[in-house]
């Protein structure tokens, strides 16, 4: 049953991708890209990766749609046909896709327990978590303690990104509205 659902969803994904490439109206492209995100999120869900699916749905279908629509206001919604045939990009894409598919042939089968990723450190984490006085939740122990530096790095990246977005938004508003609107917004916040 799961294989059947997966097959239907992946077929729809391929159809949507071809439609995105052939579509000349950029507004339609944004809508189709949102549909693509919802479908790929469903595929992730069927594969049991609910957290990845959640991220894909919020970033791909939610925020990307909003940001792309805001960009459409600046660019206009018509894409002009290319002046020449895109043979070289097609060739590069085909070669890259071939290399990637060739690379997956060596990978272990999906979900098998004797894959290399389950052999090295994971059993050690599970055995030693109690001895090392880790937090009672093993996942928390791995994320916050065994891989503490990794998590710290990720958090720093997200923090920096957030600060960057806040700085850009603040500077933009001050320039476009002027001092009158600024005092008005100050009243509203007070």
């Amino acid at each position, binding site marked *: *049953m799961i294989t059947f*659902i997966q097959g*239907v*969803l992946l077929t*729809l994904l391929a*159809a*949507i991708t071809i*439609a995105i490439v052939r579509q000349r*109206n950029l*507004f*339609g492209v944004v*809508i*189709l890209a*949102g*549909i693509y995100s*919802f*479908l790929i*999120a*469903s595929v992730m*869900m*069927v594969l049991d990766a*609910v957290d990845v*699916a*959640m991220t894909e*749905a*919020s970033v791909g*279908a*939610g925020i990307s*749609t*909003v940001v792309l*629509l*805001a960009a*459409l*206001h600046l660019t206009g919604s018509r894409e002009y046909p290319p002046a020449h045939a895109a043979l070289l990009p097609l060739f590069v894409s085909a070669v890259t896709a071939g290399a990637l598919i060739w690379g997956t042939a060596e990978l272990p089968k999906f979900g098998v327990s004797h894959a290399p990723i389950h052999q090295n450190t994971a059993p050690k984490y599970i055995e030693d978590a109690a001895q090392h006085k880790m937090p009672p939740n093993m996942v928390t122990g791995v994320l916050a303690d065994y891989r503490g530096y990794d998590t710290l790095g990720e958090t720093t990246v997200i923090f920096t990104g957030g600060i960057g977005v806040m700085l850009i938004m603040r500077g933009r508003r001050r320039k476009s509205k002027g001092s009158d609107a600024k005092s008005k917004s100050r009243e509203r916040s007070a």
Partner: protein
Amino acid sequence: MFIVATVAVLIALVLAVSRAILGPSVFDRVLAGNSVGTLAILLLAVLGFLTGRPEWLDIALTYCLLNIIGTLAVLKYFRYGDLAYDDEKEQP
């Protein structure tokens, strides 16, 4: 029973996606995109029951909220042609 529901949702998904691809107008695509979002939520809920994990319903609720944000952005773009449009600014 859940299998029948899943198949029905998948058929509806195929119909909605084909409408989004065929067009012909942008409004068809917007409606089809909205239905695909709703059907993805339904598929998530049914899949949870199919695999014996009804806890997925919480995630389905979060998806509903995301769907509303996207639809609101699209509608505001239709109405004003600009997402940063300020209603108070136009009044004298």
